[in-house]
């Protein structure tokens, strides 16, 4: 079935969504000339720059997470496609205030190559960069190949900590270290109930039967761990939590932040029912919850389904997590 979309010319979706986003930032973010990159208007001299980015179509990820104690800018690709090196380089130049720039993005082949090329071009111009790739999706590869895992909604927690660290620490290496630690402390898993569609064509990104779900399926329809008949919320959450808890592993006495993310069109009602079961499981496991975030943060158009992310806190990460943050897509008072 062709998706119904509120758009104009399908070729213009990225251009027009970025225009709309800049307006929603009310002067705190501007768009660079000639490239699809957004940067904060207020960048203090000497600040380590935090550049996030990736394909568009997953809003509010990534470009909706620019702001106070969040990303300093975002390099935006076409729908579901990595930004090209010239876009990333232009954003890098704009963010470099003398202390270098940290690249933070999801671990996908296209993003990795384009950000790496941009990093080499930036080095030729004397701009220091470091890179943290987010690979929180436990369904996408076994633990021994963690660097082949995909980045999904856990992006939000890593960006949150990185934004606070980049606003606090003055040394790129230290911001890199704290961000990598946050990345290493996050685990996620999703379930797909229905496909989203590609805005340019209206075609679904994958096929899934009316009564089927895929546990562990990725944001673009990447294969998960199992395809099965639709389950009630509680046993479904139990299956997902088994994978997540065993992976880090999370243990009794741990303190975590919890994110329940809608993939595009799953209702708040369903997410809250999921949260109820997640908390029962965490309580039984002796894991305490420092903060809960529930909503749409990392989406794939009208895809239905959700993901669960946990980030383990320690005395170093907790203050960064607790710093106030303000962006279009995520705010913490």
């Amino acid at each position, binding site marked *: 079935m062709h998706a119904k979309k509120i758009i104009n010319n399908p070729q213009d979706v990225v251009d027009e969504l970025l225009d709309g986003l800049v307006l929603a930032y009310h002067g705190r973010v501007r768009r660079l000339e000639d490239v699809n990159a957004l940067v904060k208007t207020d960048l203090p001299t000497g600040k380590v720059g935090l550049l996030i980015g990736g394909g568009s179509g997953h809003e509010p990820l990534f470009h909706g997470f620019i702001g106070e104690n969040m990303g300093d800018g975002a390099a935006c690709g076409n729908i579901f496609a990595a930004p090209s090196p010239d876009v990333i380089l232009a954003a890098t130049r704009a963010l470099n205030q003398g202390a270098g720039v940290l690249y933070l993005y999801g671990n996908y082949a296209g993003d990795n*190559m384009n950000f790496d090329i941009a990093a080499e071009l930036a080095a030729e111009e004397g701009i220091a960069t470091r890179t943290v790739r987010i690979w929180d999706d436990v369904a996408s590869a076994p633990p021994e190949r963690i660097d082949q895992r995909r980045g999904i909604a856990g992006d939000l927690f890593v960006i949150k900590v990185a934004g606070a660290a980049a606003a606090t620490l003055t040394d790129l290496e230290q911001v890199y270290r704290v961000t990598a630690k946050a990345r290493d402390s996050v685990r996620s898993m999703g379930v797909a109930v229905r496909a989203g569609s590609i805005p340019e064509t209206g075609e679904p990104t994958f096929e899934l039967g009316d009564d089927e779900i895929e546990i562990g399926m990725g944001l673009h329809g990447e294969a998960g761990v199992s395809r099965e008949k639709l389950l009630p919320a509680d046993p479904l959450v139990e299956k997902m939590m088994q994978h997540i808890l065993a992976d880090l592993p999370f243990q009794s006495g741990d303190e975590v932040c919890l994110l329940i993310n809608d993939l595009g069109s799953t209702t708040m009602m369903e997410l809250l029912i999921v949260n109820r079961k997640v908390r029962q499981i965490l309580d039984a496991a002796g894991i305490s919850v420092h903060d809960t975030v529930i909503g749409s943060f990392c989406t794939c158009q009208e895809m239905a389904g959700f993901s669960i992310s946990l980030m383990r806190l320690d005395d170093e990460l907790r203050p960064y997590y607790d710093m106030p943050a303000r962006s279009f897509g995520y705010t913490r008072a």
Partner: protein
Amino acid sequence: MATSELTPDETREMLLQVCRGMQASKDRLSEADRAIGDGDHGVGMARGFEAVQRKLEAISSAAAIDELFRTVGTALLTSVGGAAGAVFGTLFRGGSQNLSDCSAFDAAALARLLTDGLAAVKARGQAQPGDKTMVDALEPAARRAQQLTGAPIGEALTEVAEAARQGMEKTRQMVATVGKAKTLGERSLGHPDPGAISTYLILTYMAEYASRDRS
């Protein structure tokens, strides 16, 4: 009469033929990508080679061989987007690195272009032969080119394009393990990799120009 090499002007004409051919192949490539990817490969490559065409038409006719290929790579890198832009941009930019002493494009230069380009692509994308990527078309093409360094350029390109075609056909039997097509796993069986098709087509359009009857 077979020509042993192409002048810089002819090399530019050859690359412009590639631009026209790749833009005309848009629907074929997108269709191939719909089978195993997200269906945007043809759109990206057509947009890329349109940008290449603009750059090549603006470049001075006295441009050196390495500058021509580097121009192709840089234009692809900045206009295609996604993984394809990085891979094909790297192929041409990496391939141009050791062509600065070439006053003409001959079979030896072709071998260097493909060998250095292949090495750069492998380093960038970490794809190995058998992963169902453009490397599976590019590697046999580079190997064939190294055996033909003394051949007339038209003959060498025709043989190299054929090697790429055979490599591309073999990707039907492979299961994708890198890039977006790994989404499908076993479901990618039976379909050739769109990047491998593009590699074969680029070499085919180069061969068509270099083998033409010259009046």
